[in-house]
């Protein structure tokens, strides 16, 4: 892609976008990745579809919290500007944005909710959000699978996603085997 030219306002927008999603990321930041895609790829054009998917896939394949896909998205936005200092700066802005609000809230409430876990309001929050959290995870998988192609000629990818979902759901096979199998199938050009 051609080199991005980000104004100071754009840097602020980048930070604010992630910060605005932070408190919405109930069930993990990955559930807000649909909104990140809408913003970073569709609206601003700061990332290509391929870069977006690469960020998610690499963070998923690597050890550690999946939240690191946000670090990679920031890194890639920075790379697209062509400036040497930009990848690290954009990565820090994205990570601080996505983590600071939720972490402060988590810190403030973790002890409180532990002490007050029998309160009706605390229980209503937990119970009410449970079905939404579960559905968000499935929806996120759907959006990620469709990012590679919604059409029927991509059916092997859909089949692979569906099969790995089934295996994870029903067996205790280590996730690394599945990711490895996906890599081999992809490298051979089968999916």
């Amino acid at each position, binding site marked *: 892609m051609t080199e991005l030219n980000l104004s100071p306002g754009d840097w602020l927008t980048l930070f604010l976008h992630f910060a605005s999603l932070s408190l919405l990321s109930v069930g993990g930041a990955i559930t807000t990745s649909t909104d990140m895609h809408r913003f970073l790829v569709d609206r601003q054009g700061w990332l290509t579809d391929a870069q977006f998917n690469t960020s998610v896939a690499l963070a998923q394949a690597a050890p*550690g919290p999946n939240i690191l896909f946000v670090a990679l998205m920031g890194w890639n936005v920075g790379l697209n500007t062509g400036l040497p200092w930009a990848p690290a700066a954009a990565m820090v802005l994205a990570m601080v944005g996505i983590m600071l609000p939720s972490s402060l809230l988590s810190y403030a409430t973790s*002890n409180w909710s532990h002490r007050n876990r029998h309160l009706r309001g605390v229980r209503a929050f937990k119970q009410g959000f449970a*079905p939404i959290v579960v559905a968000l995870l499935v929806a996120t*998988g759907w959006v990620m699978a469709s990012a*590679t192609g919604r059409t029927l000629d991509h059916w092997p990818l859909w089949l692979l996603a569906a*099969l790995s979902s089934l295996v*994870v759901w029903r067996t205790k096979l280590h*996730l690394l085997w599945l990711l490895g199998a996906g890599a081999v199938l992809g490298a*051979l050009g089968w999916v």
Partner: protein
Amino acid sequence: MNSITSVQPRPQTLTELFLGFSWLALQGFGGVLAVAQRELVEKKRWLSRDEFIEEWAVAQLMPGPNVINLAISLGSRYFGWRGAWVAMAGMLAFPLVIVLILATVYAQLAHLPAAAGALRGMAAVAAGLIAATGLKLAPALKINVLGKPLCVLLGVATFVGVAWLRLPLAVVVLGLGALACGLAWRRLPA
């Protein structure tokens, strides 16, 4: 909940806390929950199983990355705000370096069809993993106070709104979430 007969182990220093969470994070390929349970409950015994489930429920229902929330919650319990920072840093520091190395290596190889294909295959698997996490959690809804029909309705509405209609997440989470919490409040005994 706490065992009366034995003293529960806990990290003695901030360094131990940092290394504990680093070691946990470095084993967590494709997700940290399973490893967190094994390390914190079975190996280090910083938490009993009951405590872990409780902590996890809160960490999961709070916004933000679940494992980071768990780290903040545990770290702050042992060492206050310093503990929260140290546990979070432990969770992120080494994995961040690794993922940046991976991204840099991949960028060199991205022009190769095989490398692009491999990542495409891994992305499809990753999509499946996330969907499966949702499916694995679904049985927990059986005992939800909202009851099965309402849970299914709310779940389907969430899925359609996010996956098919591509509505902004705020609209779905805040709208349906407020409705669901209100319904749950009414059904819970005071």
